[in-house]
């Protein structure tokens, strides 16, 4: 189950800097661990995060094995116009999660 918690303002004044906080459910298995019988545990991490605002990319992050489980990312952007901010996480083993948030700019 891919789940995410998003905190973003539903309304903003035009030109205002808004903060978007995201938390996605993921184990972030590093690939450096071994089981009790010595088998390596395969890496399973989120590798990419992108945020697009009305189709335009406003934030991107690459994630690596040292990042904690359930990665918490916050970023800022400028509220230019009403529309949708799409948040997308992709990772190992075909992991994909997408969340859309509506924002009204006045």
């Amino acid at each position, binding site marked *: 189950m891919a*789940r995410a*918690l998003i905190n973003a303002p539903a309304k903003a004044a035009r030109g205002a800097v808004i903060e978007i906080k995201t*938390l996605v*459910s993921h184990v972030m298995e590093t690939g450096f661990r071994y089981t009790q019988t010595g088998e390596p545990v395969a890496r399973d991490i989120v590798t990419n995060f992108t945020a697009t605002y009305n189709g335009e990319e406003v934030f991107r992050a690459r994630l690596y094995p040292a990042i904690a*489980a359930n990665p918490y990312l916050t970023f800022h952007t400028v509220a230019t116009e009403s529309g949708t901010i799409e948040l997308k996480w992709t990772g190992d083993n075909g992991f994909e999660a997408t969340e859309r948030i509506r924002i009204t700019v006045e």
Partner: protein
Amino acid sequence: MRRAAALTAVAVLAVSAAISGEIPLSERRSTYLDMGAETRAMQDGDTDNPGMLWVLDGEALWRTTAGKAAIACAGCHGEAETSMKGVAARYPAFDPTRGTAIDLAGRINICRTERQQAPELKRESRELLALTALIARQSRGMPIISEDERLKPAIEAGRAIFMIRQGQLDLACAQCHDDNRGSRLAGITVPQGHPTGYPLYRLEWQTLGSLQRRLRNCLIGMRAEPYTYGAPEYIALEAYLMWRARGMAMESPAVRP
């Protein structure tokens, strides 16, 4: 003979004096207050608290039919927000049909096997933690209640485990969490050990975990043999700890370092 008896009496007195320091009710404090501002903020914000990911999973599971009876939790209990309000604050509870105390996770599994006719959920599995987190969330801010007289034997058994020295380090729970509460152990403040926020998200674990997992953690630290999950000893300890924390506010799902 008399001398040996007298010595034993002295030894017993010394031990009971050393670990008689139950915390006065007014001096009890949640470990929440000893955490950094960032960790507290993480617990307080519903979109910052990773424990809420389990609560969301729990909400989905609550509505999912399971077992031969093909019934969901919601089928009997309706909305968790109303029917489960305050429930976690009074667990472990006494189960009259079994004649023993049961913990919340055990209660969920009894519901699963008896009502839903589904297999038990494994202790510390994502599903069981999710359902426990959903139920515990409904008691947030409510005081812990431990008033059932029938829980007394479990509470007393739990107190005995809490007070007895065990493991290769020959330590009792009470030596840290009663006698040396508030002192420093390496970089951290020794907590009073009140189970106000379980199941909780430990940054060290990078996941949600139950009180029993935390107790297991302590037992291993004492170089004592941990009990198996769901063992009566754990439930007794839980019952004692909840009695000890009676009246304190529930924080589930809490965040701890």
